[in-house]
């Protein structure tokens, strides 16, 4: 581990704190995640993967990403299929020269921007801190471990 690790930015200032995810401190009391000599890196990664803290990070990531991906892909496919199969519906006027197709197209832009903002916010507030703690702990454990 390098001390000038670029992860060591503003966020990293409090990496030792617990954030409610039950993450373990690298110098904490011996527990299931204790860095034991003679452990190979493979064992350490398996151990981290099974730890509650990692499961929580993964759960938070998947709970956001999986439904969001299905939602925006479905919305995009509906839009494309409607554009080529239902031109009559898409041509229906809404206001002035603006029709359903124009609203749907600009709606795609809008939902893309909104989802981008929502994802960035979710990751920053709900995931970054816990992931960073895990990163330090894992690197601390794998340091010196045989591979």
């Amino acid at each position, binding site marked *: 581990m390098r001390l000038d690790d670029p992860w060591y930015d503003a966020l990293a200032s409090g990496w030792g704190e617990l954030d409610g995810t039950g993450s373990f401190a690298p110098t904490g009391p011996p527990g299931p995640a204790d860095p034991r000599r003679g452990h190979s890196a493979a064992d350490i990664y*398996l151990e981290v993967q099974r730890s509650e803290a*990692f499961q929580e990070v993964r759960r938070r990531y998947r709970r956001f990403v999986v439904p969001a991906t299905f939602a*925006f892909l479905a919305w995009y496919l509906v839009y494309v299929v409607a554009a080529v199969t239902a031109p009559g519906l*898409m041509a229906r006027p809404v206001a*002035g*020269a603006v029709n359903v197709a124009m609203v749907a197209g600009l709606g795609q832009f809008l939902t*893309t921007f909104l989802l981008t903002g929502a994802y960035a916010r979710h990751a920053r507030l709900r995931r970054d801190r816990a992931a960073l703690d895990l990163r330090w702990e894992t*690197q601390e454990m794998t340091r010196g471990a045989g591979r």
Partner: protein
Amino acid sequence: MNGNHETLALLLFSAFIAVTLAITTWVGRNRHGSAEEFYAGGRLFSPMENGFAIAGDYMSAASFLGISGLIALFGYDGMLYSVGFLVAWLVVLLLVAELVRNCGRFTLADVVAARMAERPVRIAAGTSSVTVSVLYLVAQMVGAGSLVALLLGGTSGAARSWTVIGVGALMVIYVSLGGMRATTWIQIVKAVLLMAGAVVLTVLVLVRFHGDFNALLDSAAERSGHGSRFLAPGLRYGGTWTARIDFISLGLALVLGTAGLPHILSRFYTVPTARAARRSVVWSIGLIGSFYLMTIALGFGAAALVGSAEVRASNAAGNTAVPLLALVLGGGEGSTGGTILFAVVAAVAFATILAVVAGITLASSASVAHDLYASLRRPGAKQYSEVAVARVAAAVIGVAAIGLGLVAQDLNVAFLVGLAFAVAASANLPVLLYSLFWRNFTTRGAVWSVYGGLIPAVLLVLLSPVVSGSPDSFFPGVDFQLFPLENPGLVSIPLGFLAGWAGAVTSTDPPDEAKHAETEVRALTGAGAV
């Protein structure tokens, strides 16, 4: 188009070339020659810089001139492209950018090979990455040739050929001398120029209509000769059912292909952390989204102010819609304002092409040196440094792209771009997603998934009406057309996913649980990331 445009445009071209060569020299003055430096520019770009560079890497001349031209000719149907190009970034943001940054070093194959038997996986992923890059590169070269010739008025074959050769030579110089650092700065400069040009033109269009978008749409519909049908889908893709399904196939390829483009993936390695990779994608979505919104205004503006018939008369594919619009907005043919705006648009288009081809050349030279050369080298052979191999590979790819660009001069550019996206979505995306998310994925699955997407995609194109069997085909004289669609995505993307699944479940070796744990932990936390 008189001589003034050409002189001024040539001056601006030369200025841009001088600036980019200066960047290349300045960057290369004390280079270390390490792989880290050459492929990833030292990994210390800021998210904003990388966001601009991604936007500069992604927005090709096809989007600037092509999409606005399509809107000017076909109205709403042109917009469908820009929506696909933008929504694709959500796949990149949510599923790919951060995880790839955490797991890989330089290329797509790094991510996959971390879990699998290294050699076969690297050869497979390297091959498909090079295929995608070369297709995309040829598309850009062909586009560059016809575009510059068109903008400068010289439609002769010689002008086009020399443009292709010149663009190829420049990109080889940028990449082999400047590596990722020079490429990134060229892309940033280009993105700023492109955004500035688009903003100026959009503001001028909106000022013409006193900020009334409704009035803009109304007069576009009126001048187009199609009336209100111009503002609804169907003018271009509403014909036969084959054409409609073909468009769905293209739409699928666009939205899933971006996340498999090697030159986009390699951009995430230029920032220090996954968090920075995420923030750079947020920047680039902002830039790309607002750019495509502006192309909509420009396209309808060209229809309203220039007229669809005039656009079509100048270039049947609509590629000159924006330059013609610039001429009108500046005060018309022969006016000083018109001359300046036209030359600026031409120079921006030229800058766009150079920045995009440099990015692709760099990514494909990385695939050749880091994946293919490292895996295929005979054990006893003399060992060259990887960066030296990459520099040579950039030159070889440049020569190959020039050659193919000269041969393929008459191919449709939009089709080539669509094909590159289809191959990326069929061969690269499935293996990437399976490696990152599927516990039971195996080496056999990875290899099958790459070839199971790559081979059908290429075969279906060879059997499509693009290659034979219709008057517009590459070989109009013969007919071995078996597949009705021009874009293979609708068939080859599911095949890529299916082949990966089939390979994994029929594997004789069990999936490596520890390697999966390592990939998952590293992907989501960044532990051990370089």
